[in-house]
Protein backbone atom coordinates (compact mmCIF):
# COMPACT_ATOMS: atom_id res chain seq x y z
CA UNK A 1 0.00 0.00 0.00
CA UNK A 2 1.04 3.54 -0.63
CA UNK A 3 1.25 4.41 3.04
CA UNK A 4 3.40 1.41 3.75
CA UNK A 5 5.85 2.08 0.93
CA UNK A 6 6.06 5.74 1.93
CA UNK A 7 6.85 4.60 5.41
CA UNK A 8 9.64 2.22 4.34
CA UNK A 9 12.39 4.76 3.59
CA UNK A 10 11.43 6.55 6.77
CA UNK A 11 11.72 3.34 8.77
CA UNK A 12 15.12 2.63 7.26
CA UNK A 13 16.24 6.08 8.25
CA UNK A 14 15.04 5.63 11.81
CA UNK A 15 16.37 2.15 12.30
CA UNK A 16 18.90 1.90 15.13
CA UNK A 17 22.22 0.61 13.73
CA UNK A 18 22.47 -2.31 16.12
CA UNK A 19 24.09 -4.86 13.76
CA UNK A 20 27.61 -3.43 13.44
CA UNK A 21 27.84 -2.75 17.15
CA UNK A 22 26.53 -6.04 18.50
CA UNK A 23 29.89 -7.84 18.28
CA UNK A 24 31.60 -5.49 20.65
CA UNK A 25 28.57 -4.69 22.76
CA UNK A 26 30.50 -5.29 25.99
CA UNK A 27 33.46 -3.17 25.04
CA UNK A 28 31.30 -0.16 24.48
CA UNK A 29 30.47 1.74 27.65
CA UNK A 30 26.74 1.70 28.53
CA UNK A 31 26.88 5.47 28.32
CA UNK A 32 27.80 5.44 24.64
CA UNK A 33 25.39 2.69 23.74
CA UNK A 34 22.51 4.47 25.44
CA UNK A 35 23.13 7.65 23.51
CA UNK A 36 21.87 5.94 20.40
CA UNK A 37 18.71 4.58 21.96
CA UNK A 38 15.71 6.51 20.69
CA UNK A 39 13.86 6.18 23.97
CA UNK A 40 16.57 7.94 25.83
CA UNK A 41 17.19 10.89 23.58
CA UNK A 42 15.66 13.14 26.20
CA UNK A 43 17.74 11.77 29.10
CA UNK A 44 21.37 11.86 28.14
CA UNK A 45 24.04 11.51 30.75
CA UNK A 46 26.55 14.28 30.98
CA UNK A 47 30.24 13.72 30.70
CA UNK A 48 31.74 13.30 34.15
CA UNK A 49 34.69 15.61 33.76
CA UNK A 50 32.43 18.35 32.42
CA UNK A 51 30.17 17.87 35.44
CA UNK A 52 33.17 18.05 37.75
CA UNK A 53 34.32 21.35 36.22
CA UNK A 54 30.89 22.87 36.54
CA UNK A 55 30.39 21.64 40.11
CA UNK A 56 33.77 23.00 41.13
CA UNK A 57 33.01 26.38 39.64
CA UNK A 58 29.64 26.55 41.43
CA UNK A 59 31.33 25.75 44.74
CA UNK A 60 34.16 28.22 44.13
CA UNK A 61 31.61 30.92 43.48
CA UNK A 62 30.16 30.39 46.91
CA UNK A 63 31.27 33.39 48.96
CA UNK A 64 32.17 31.51 52.10
CA UNK A 65 34.44 29.13 50.27
CA UNK A 66 38.16 29.65 49.94
CA UNK A 67 38.69 28.82 46.23
CA UNK A 68 42.19 27.51 46.85
CA UNK A 69 40.78 24.71 49.02
CA UNK A 70 38.42 23.47 46.36
CA UNK A 71 39.57 20.26 44.75
CA UNK A 72 37.66 17.23 43.51
CA UNK A 73 38.06 15.51 46.89
CA UNK A 74 36.91 18.44 49.01
CA UNK A 75 34.39 17.62 51.72
CA UNK A 76 31.96 20.48 52.36
CA UNK A 77 32.21 20.38 56.14
CA UNK A 78 35.65 19.02 56.90
CA UNK A 79 37.61 20.74 54.16
CA UNK A 80 35.58 23.79 53.24
CA UNK A 81 34.15 24.56 56.69
CA UNK A 82 30.57 24.75 55.46
CA UNK A 83 27.60 24.02 57.69
CA UNK A 84 24.24 22.44 56.91
CA UNK A 85 22.64 25.65 55.64
CA UNK A 86 25.61 26.23 53.33
CA UNK A 87 25.35 22.68 52.02
CA UNK A 88 21.70 23.15 51.20
CA UNK A 89 22.51 26.45 49.49
CA UNK A 90 25.10 24.68 47.39
CA UNK A 91 22.63 21.96 46.46
CA UNK A 92 20.22 24.69 45.38
CA UNK A 93 22.93 26.36 43.31
CA UNK A 94 23.71 23.01 41.67
CA UNK A 95 20.04 22.55 40.85
CA UNK A 96 20.09 25.91 39.08
CA UNK A 97 23.29 25.08 37.24
CA UNK A 98 22.18 21.68 36.03
CA UNK A 99 18.50 22.44 35.61
CA UNK A 100 16.97 19.59 37.62
CA UNK A 101 15.65 19.13 41.10
CA UNK A 102 17.71 17.12 43.54
CA UNK A 103 15.22 15.30 45.79
CA UNK A 104 15.39 16.30 49.45
CA UNK A 105 15.98 12.73 50.50
CA UNK A 106 19.15 12.62 48.39
CA UNK A 107 20.40 16.08 49.32
CA UNK A 108 21.73 14.74 52.63
CA UNK A 109 24.23 12.57 50.87
CA UNK A 110 25.75 15.30 48.77
CA UNK A 111 28.34 16.57 51.19
CA UNK A 112 31.45 16.53 49.09
CA UNK A 113 32.42 17.56 45.57
CA UNK A 114 32.94 13.95 44.51
CA UNK A 115 29.51 12.90 45.72
CA UNK A 116 27.90 15.84 43.97
CA UNK A 117 29.67 14.98 40.72
CA UNK A 118 28.77 11.29 40.95
CA UNK A 119 25.15 12.09 41.67
CA UNK A 120 24.75 14.59 38.86
CA UNK A 121 26.65 12.55 36.29
CA UNK A 122 24.36 9.60 36.95
CA UNK A 123 21.13 11.54 36.52
CA UNK A 124 19.66 11.70 33.03
CA UNK A 125 17.75 14.90 33.84
CA UNK A 126 20.92 16.90 34.36
CA UNK A 127 21.50 19.44 31.59
Amino acid sequence: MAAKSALQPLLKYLRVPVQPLSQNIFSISPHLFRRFSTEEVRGCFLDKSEVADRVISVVKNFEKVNPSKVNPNAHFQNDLGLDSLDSVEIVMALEEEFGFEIPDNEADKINSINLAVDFIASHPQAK
Partner: protein
Amino acid sequence: MNLLQGKISSVMNINCLRRNLFSASSALPAVQLPAKKELHFWYILPDEVNSANLLNQYLEILSPCEKENIFRMRGEQLKKRALLARTLVRTTLARYQTNCQIDPKSLKFRKNNYGKPEVDWQYSDDWSLPPLHFNISHTSSLIACGVTVDSTIGIDVEEKQRRLKNDILAFARRYFTLREVEMLTGISDPETQRQEFIKLWTLKEAYVKALGKGFSASPFNTFTVRLRDSMEKGTCHASHLISEVPEIIIESSGDPNNPSENWQFVLLELLGSHYAAICMEQDMISGGNGSVPINLIIRKTIPFVKDEFMSSGTDVVVVGGLTRLLGPA
Protein backbone atom coordinates in the same frame (compact mmCIF):
# COMPACT_ATOMS: atom_id res chain seq x y z
CA MET B 1 38.70 10.89 109.50
CA ASN B 2 37.93 7.70 111.46
CA LEU B 3 38.88 4.16 110.36
CA LEU B 4 35.47 3.35 108.82
CA GLN B 5 35.42 6.47 106.71
CA GLY B 6 38.97 5.69 105.63
CA LYS B 7 37.91 2.19 104.49
CA ILE B 8 34.95 3.46 102.47
CA SER B 9 36.94 6.15 100.71
CA SER B 10 39.70 3.69 99.82
CA VAL B 11 37.17 1.29 98.25
CA MET B 12 35.84 4.13 96.14
CA ASN B 13 39.31 5.27 95.28
CA ILE B 14 40.24 1.91 93.78
CA ASN B 15 37.76 2.54 91.01
CA CYS B 16 38.70 6.17 90.70
CA LEU B 17 42.42 5.59 90.64
CA ARG B 18 42.73 4.53 87.05
CA ARG B 19 40.68 7.51 85.94
CA ASN B 20 42.50 10.26 87.77
CA LEU B 21 45.04 10.67 85.05
CA PHE B 22 45.12 14.41 85.01
CA SER B 23 46.33 16.87 87.61
CA ALA B 24 44.04 18.42 90.17
CA SER B 25 44.50 21.85 88.62
CA SER B 26 42.78 20.81 85.43
CA ALA B 27 39.86 19.09 87.11
CA LEU B 28 36.38 19.94 85.92
CA PRO B 29 33.99 21.20 88.58
CA ALA B 30 31.23 18.67 89.16
CA VAL B 31 27.75 19.62 88.08
CA GLN B 32 24.35 18.34 89.16
CA LEU B 33 22.59 16.22 86.58
CA PRO B 34 19.80 17.88 84.64
CA ALA B 35 16.44 17.11 86.21
CA LYS B 36 13.54 15.88 84.11
CA LYS B 37 12.31 18.65 81.77
CA GLU B 38 15.57 20.42 82.33
CA LEU B 39 18.12 21.24 79.71
CA HIS B 40 21.70 22.34 80.21
CA PHE B 41 23.07 24.52 77.46
CA TRP B 42 26.82 24.98 77.40
CA TYR B 43 28.67 27.12 74.94
CA ILE B 44 32.18 28.21 74.08
CA LEU B 45 33.40 31.17 72.03
CA PRO B 46 36.37 30.11 69.87
CA ASP B 47 37.67 33.68 69.72
CA GLU B 48 38.26 33.58 73.46
CA VAL B 49 40.44 30.50 73.35
CA ASN B 50 43.86 31.28 71.95
CA SER B 51 46.42 29.82 74.29
CA ALA B 52 48.48 27.15 72.52
CA ASN B 53 49.02 25.44 75.88
CA LEU B 54 45.33 25.19 76.50
CA LEU B 55 44.59 23.95 73.00
CA ASN B 56 47.23 21.27 73.42
CA GLN B 57 45.67 20.28 76.70
CA TYR B 58 42.39 19.88 74.87
CA LEU B 59 44.02 17.78 72.19
CA GLU B 60 45.17 15.36 74.89
CA ILE B 61 41.65 14.43 75.93
CA LEU B 62 40.51 13.47 72.43
CA SER B 63 40.44 9.92 71.15
CA PRO B 64 43.04 8.89 68.53
CA CYS B 65 40.29 8.83 65.92
CA GLU B 66 39.15 12.35 66.75
CA LYS B 67 42.73 13.62 66.64
CA GLU B 68 43.23 12.07 63.26
CA ASN B 69 40.07 13.68 61.90
CA ILE B 70 41.34 17.04 63.05
CA PHE B 71 44.82 16.60 61.58
CA ARG B 72 43.26 15.69 58.25
CA MET B 73 41.37 18.98 58.07
CA ARG B 74 42.92 21.88 56.30
CA GLY B 75 42.92 25.35 57.81
CA GLU B 76 43.83 26.40 61.34
CA GLN B 77 40.43 27.86 62.10
CA LEU B 78 38.66 24.70 60.98
CA LYS B 79 40.96 22.54 63.08
CA LYS B 80 40.51 24.77 66.12
CA ARG B 81 36.74 24.71 65.74
CA ALA B 82 36.65 20.93 65.45
CA LEU B 83 38.98 20.60 68.44
CA LEU B 84 36.84 22.89 70.57
CA ALA B 85 33.66 21.05 69.56
CA ARG B 86 35.01 17.66 70.67
CA THR B 87 36.49 19.21 73.81
CA LEU B 88 33.17 20.82 74.67
CA VAL B 89 31.31 17.52 74.35
CA ARG B 90 33.82 15.48 76.34
CA THR B 91 34.41 17.96 79.13
CA THR B 92 30.73 18.82 79.47
CA LEU B 93 29.60 15.22 79.80
CA ALA B 94 32.47 14.42 82.16
CA ARG B 95 31.20 16.99 84.64
CA TYR B 96 28.10 14.98 85.37
CA GLN B 97 29.98 12.62 87.60
CA THR B 98 28.13 10.76 90.28
CA ASN B 99 30.73 8.85 92.29
CA CYS B 100 34.09 10.21 91.36
CA GLN B 101 35.86 12.20 88.73
CA ILE B 102 35.39 11.14 85.17
CA ASP B 103 38.27 11.43 82.78
CA PRO B 104 36.82 13.13 79.68
CA LYS B 105 39.20 11.06 77.63
CA SER B 106 37.53 7.86 78.78
CA LEU B 107 34.16 8.64 77.18
CA LYS B 108 33.35 6.60 74.13
CA PHE B 109 31.01 7.68 71.38
CA ARG B 110 29.19 6.00 68.55
CA LYS B 111 26.73 7.03 65.87
CA ASN B 112 23.17 5.83 65.50
CA ASN B 113 22.03 4.26 62.22
CA TYR B 114 21.64 7.69 60.67
CA GLY B 115 24.91 9.17 61.86
CA LYS B 116 23.71 11.03 64.95
CA PRO B 117 26.45 10.95 67.60
CA GLU B 118 25.65 9.56 71.04
CA VAL B 119 27.53 8.31 74.09
CA ASP B 120 28.40 4.66 73.92
CA TRP B 121 27.59 3.61 77.45
CA GLN B 122 28.39 -0.01 76.91
CA TYR B 123 32.07 0.60 76.30
CA SER B 124 32.50 3.64 78.45
CA ASP B 125 34.99 3.10 81.25
CA ASP B 126 32.67 4.70 83.72
CA TRP B 127 29.68 2.52 84.50
CA SER B 128 28.17 5.10 86.80
CA LEU B 129 27.20 7.65 84.16
CA PRO B 130 23.47 8.22 83.82
CA PRO B 131 21.79 8.13 80.39
CA LEU B 132 22.71 11.60 79.19
CA HIS B 133 21.56 12.83 75.80
CA PHE B 134 23.48 15.53 74.04
CA ASN B 135 23.59 17.41 70.77
CA ILE B 136 26.04 19.97 69.48
CA SER B 137 25.97 22.76 66.97
CA HIS B 138 28.67 25.05 65.77
CA THR B 139 29.09 28.29 63.94
CA SER B 140 32.50 29.85 63.42
CA SER B 141 31.96 32.10 66.43
CA LEU B 142 30.02 29.94 68.88
CA ILE B 143 29.95 26.23 69.65
CA ALA B 144 27.13 24.88 71.79
CA CYS B 145 26.27 21.61 73.50
CA GLY B 146 22.88 20.79 74.96
CA VAL B 147 22.50 18.05 77.59
CA THR B 148 19.43 16.35 79.01
CA VAL B 149 18.61 13.23 80.94
CA ASP B 150 16.12 10.81 79.40
CA SER B 151 14.96 13.13 76.64
CA THR B 152 15.93 13.32 72.99
CA ILE B 153 17.34 16.67 72.07
CA GLY B 154 18.43 18.67 69.05
CA ILE B 155 20.03 22.12 68.99
CA ASP B 156 21.06 24.51 66.27
CA VAL B 157 22.90 27.79 66.46
CA GLU B 158 23.27 30.40 63.72
CA GLU B 159 24.79 33.84 63.49
CA LYS B 160 22.11 36.52 63.38
CA GLN B 161 23.98 38.38 60.66
CA ARG B 162 24.18 35.38 58.38
CA ARG B 163 23.40 36.19 54.76
CA LEU B 164 21.94 33.78 52.28
CA LYS B 165 23.49 33.40 48.86
CA ASN B 166 20.10 32.65 47.35
CA ASP B 167 17.02 34.84 47.51
CA ILE B 168 15.21 34.10 50.80
CA LEU B 169 11.79 33.51 49.32
CA ALA B 170 13.17 31.39 46.49
CA PHE B 171 14.97 29.28 49.09
CA ALA B 172 11.86 29.06 51.25
CA ARG B 173 9.69 28.08 48.29
CA ARG B 174 12.10 25.31 47.45
CA TYR B 175 12.64 23.92 50.96
CA PHE B 176 9.99 25.16 53.38
CA THR B 177 6.23 24.60 53.58
CA LEU B 178 3.60 26.80 51.98
CA ARG B 179 2.52 28.13 55.34
CA GLU B 180 6.08 29.14 56.20
CA VAL B 181 6.53 30.81 52.81
CA GLU B 182 3.32 32.75 53.42
CA MET B 183 4.59 33.85 56.80
CA LEU B 184 7.89 35.06 55.34
CA THR B 185 6.25 36.69 52.32
CA GLY B 186 4.10 38.70 54.69
CA ILE B 187 7.16 40.45 56.13
CA SER B 188 7.88 43.60 54.18
CA ASP B 189 11.14 44.70 55.82
CA PRO B 190 13.97 42.65 54.22
CA GLU B 191 16.09 42.64 57.36
CA THR B 192 13.26 41.37 59.55
CA GLN B 193 12.41 38.83 56.88
CA ARG B 194 16.00 37.58 56.88
CA GLN B 195 16.03 37.29 60.67
CA GLU B 196 12.73 35.41 60.71
CA PHE B 197 14.15 33.10 58.08
CA ILE B 198 17.20 32.34 60.23
CA LYS B 199 14.99 31.69 63.27
CA LEU B 200 12.83 29.34 61.23
CA TRP B 201 15.88 27.55 59.88
CA THR B 202 17.38 26.98 63.34
CA LEU B 203 14.08 25.65 64.69
CA LYS B 204 13.60 23.26 61.80
CA GLU B 205 17.20 22.14 61.98
CA ALA B 206 16.94 21.56 65.75
CA TYR B 207 13.85 19.40 65.18
CA VAL B 208 15.51 17.27 62.52
CA LYS B 209 18.57 16.86 64.72
CA ALA B 210 16.37 15.83 67.64
CA LEU B 211 14.67 13.23 65.46
CA GLY B 212 18.16 11.98 64.66
CA LYS B 213 17.45 10.55 61.23
CA GLY B 214 19.00 13.20 59.04
CA PHE B 215 17.64 15.74 56.59
CA SER B 216 16.55 12.98 54.19
CA ALA B 217 14.16 11.35 56.63
CA SER B 218 12.36 14.56 57.50
CA PRO B 219 12.61 16.95 54.57
CA PHE B 220 11.96 20.49 55.66
CA ASN B 221 8.87 20.81 53.52
CA THR B 222 7.06 18.04 55.38
CA PHE B 223 6.57 20.00 58.59
CA THR B 224 5.70 23.57 59.56
CA VAL B 225 7.11 25.35 62.59
CA ARG B 226 5.14 28.31 63.81
CA LEU B 227 3.92 30.20 66.85
CA ARG B 228 0.87 28.86 68.62
CA ASP B 229 -2.09 31.15 68.27
CA SER B 230 -3.32 32.28 71.66
CA MET B 231 -6.84 31.26 70.64
CA GLU B 232 -5.85 27.77 69.65
CA LYS B 233 -7.02 24.67 71.44
CA GLY B 234 -7.73 26.46 74.70
CA THR B 235 -4.32 25.58 76.09
CA CYS B 236 -3.84 26.23 79.74
CA HIS B 237 -0.51 27.79 80.53
CA ALA B 238 0.90 27.53 84.00
CA SER B 239 0.01 30.72 85.81
CA HIS B 240 3.44 31.15 87.33
CA LEU B 241 5.08 31.12 83.95
CA ILE B 242 7.75 33.76 83.81
CA SER B 243 8.24 34.04 80.11
CA GLU B 244 5.48 35.76 78.19
CA VAL B 245 6.83 34.75 74.83
CA PRO B 246 4.73 32.74 72.43
CA GLU B 247 4.87 28.99 72.29
CA ILE B 248 6.44 27.39 69.25
CA ILE B 249 4.68 24.41 67.74
CA ILE B 250 5.21 22.01 64.94
CA GLU B 251 2.69 20.42 62.61
CA SER B 252 3.12 17.85 59.92
CA SER B 253 2.11 18.80 56.39
CA GLY B 254 -0.02 15.71 56.23
CA ASP B 255 -2.00 16.66 59.29
CA PRO B 256 -1.94 20.45 59.68
CA ASN B 257 -4.73 20.79 62.21
CA ASN B 258 -3.12 18.46 64.65
CA PRO B 259 0.11 19.97 65.95
CA SER B 260 2.50 17.46 67.35
CA GLU B 261 2.53 17.64 71.13
CA ASN B 262 5.61 15.46 71.42
CA TRP B 263 8.13 18.17 70.81
CA GLN B 264 8.90 21.35 72.62
CA PHE B 265 10.93 24.25 71.34
CA VAL B 266 12.84 27.13 72.82
CA LEU B 267 14.38 29.90 70.76
CA LEU B 268 17.03 32.12 72.29
CA GLU B 269 18.99 35.13 71.19
CA LEU B 270 22.51 34.85 72.60
CA LEU B 271 24.89 37.75 73.11
CA GLY B 272 22.88 39.77 70.61
CA SER B 273 24.70 37.91 67.88
CA HIS B 274 23.29 34.39 67.62
CA TYR B 275 20.01 32.55 67.49
CA ALA B 276 19.93 29.21 69.29
CA ALA B 277 17.06 26.80 68.82
CA ILE B 278 16.44 23.89 71.15
CA CYS B 279 14.07 21.01 70.48
CA MET B 280 13.27 18.54 73.22
CA GLU B 281 11.00 15.55 73.36
CA GLN B 282 8.12 16.16 75.67
CA ASP B 283 7.23 13.60 78.27
CA MET B 284 3.65 12.83 77.26
CA ILE B 285 2.76 11.36 80.63
CA SER B 286 3.06 14.68 82.38
CA GLY B 287 1.53 16.56 79.44
CA GLY B 288 -1.83 17.16 81.03
CA ASN B 289 -3.68 20.31 80.04
CA GLY B 290 -0.91 22.15 78.37
CA SER B 291 2.82 22.25 78.04
CA VAL B 292 5.08 22.33 81.02
CA PRO B 293 7.93 24.81 80.56
CA ILE B 294 11.44 23.59 79.99
CA ASN B 295 13.88 24.62 82.71
CA LEU B 296 16.99 25.95 81.11
CA ILE B 297 20.45 26.44 82.59
CA ILE B 298 22.85 28.26 80.30
CA ARG B 299 26.56 28.29 80.96
CA LYS B 300 29.43 29.76 79.03
CA THR B 301 32.62 27.79 79.42
CA ILE B 302 36.31 27.64 78.73
CA PRO B 303 36.98 24.05 79.84
CA PHE B 304 39.55 23.74 82.61
CA VAL B 305 39.60 27.52 82.96
CA LYS B 306 36.22 28.90 83.90
CA ASP B 307 32.46 28.45 83.71
CA GLU B 308 29.89 31.21 83.94
CA PHE B 309 26.17 31.09 84.46
CA MET B 310 24.25 33.14 81.96
CA SER B 311 20.90 34.45 83.03
CA SER B 312 18.18 36.43 81.39
CA GLY B 313 19.26 39.90 80.40
CA THR B 314 21.03 41.40 77.44
CA ASP B 315 23.18 38.31 76.90
CA VAL B 316 20.33 35.84 76.85
CA VAL B 317 16.89 36.70 75.52
CA VAL B 318 14.13 34.13 75.18
CA VAL B 319 12.47 34.75 71.85
CA GLY B 320 9.98 31.88 71.85
CA GLY B 321 8.93 28.75 73.65
CA LEU B 322 7.80 27.96 77.16
CA THR B 323 10.90 28.08 79.30
CA ARG B 324 12.23 29.14 82.65
CA LEU B 325 15.80 30.28 82.89
CA LEU B 326 17.39 28.97 86.05
CA GLY B 327 20.31 30.55 87.87
CA PRO B 328 23.04 28.90 89.90
CA ALA B 329 21.73 26.15 92.19
